[in-house]
């Protein structure tokens, strides 16, 4: 349930952005969640819906979550492989089977659309 504390942090960041830009309504919040971030997309979405409802600023806001494909790097030849979800069986260049997750551990606020 660490998604809840991340969403709480997000909402307070959005509130200060709204104050800065003198807006009273946020329309769309775009967030990227990496597949190795340990963050569950559904839980994040749920926490957002619950908490946003309580906030005047956020009550009409929509959360768009982008989950980029996974990226693995070959430990032998550094070749980068991009896959949707299952890890690749071997490197397409050198056939090594030692493929290491490359990035994808972040959770990033990309864009905010406001009135």
């Amino acid at each position, binding site marked *: 349930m*660490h998604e809840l504390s991340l969403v709480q942090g997000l909402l307070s960041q959005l509130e200060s952005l709204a104050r800065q*830009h*003198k807006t009273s309504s946020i329309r769309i919040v775009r967030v990227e969640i990496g597949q190795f971030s340990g963050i569950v997309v559904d839980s994040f979405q749920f926490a957002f819906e619950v908490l946003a409802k309580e906030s005047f600023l956020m009550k009409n806001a929509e959360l768009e979550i982008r989950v980029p494909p996974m990226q693995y790097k070959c430990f032998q030849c550094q070749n980068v492989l991009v896959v949707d979800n299952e890890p690749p069986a071997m490197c397409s260049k050198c056939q090594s089977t030692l493929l290491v997750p490359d990035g994808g551990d972040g959770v990033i*606020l*990309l864009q905010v659309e*406001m009135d």
Partner: protein
Amino acid sequence: MCDACGCDGTSSKVLEINQSLLAANNAMAEKNRIHIESLGAVAINMISSPGSGKTTLLEKTIDVLGEELRIGVIEGDIETERDAERIRAKGVPVVQLTTGGACHLDAALTHRGIHELESQLSGKKLDLLFIENVGNLVCPATFYLGEHRRLVIISVPEGPDKPAKYPRAFIGSHVFIISKTDLMPYFDFSIDYITDDALRLNPELRVMALSSTSGEGFESWISWLRSLCIRTV
């Protein structure tokens, strides 16, 4: 007109942020690291499921190293002072942080813990600071606390499939400890298999297998801790 960006404030506008949601936590954690270094210590963040043997490992480690190194402990739990009481009984400075429901420590809570510990130390220095995180293999892995080394622990009864199921904890760690090896005869558990899986996620992991009950495998753990505390000056 808006002061921040000069727009007319009527139509909708898109702000490009591109910032980690963990940026505030990580900035606080960096301050923690500097604070910990000012106490002379190297900090180790211990992450595992409930009951994998974190506190027991700390008790045995203090038995072995307590005279030689100055050890301090920050205990994280959802409720109770129990783990801190166990460590206090060993005679080392300890602070209990209770998260009141949250499933992980974060940098802000750890910051409070460091201050409390510092006031217990009343000017004395530390060599090693252990931060025992809340028992949970998922959530703590997201939050950098300012530690120098991160430890992930899996005990033999939990089974060898854990790296594949909980990759984040392995990707972000420096050391992987397989604990309770004295129980190997009773479980279908292969050290080679789990080591291989963990190294696939993170080839830089240092892997150690040990038992706090029998003391098996303790030499490499202890010498690793000693190596962390060797001062270059």
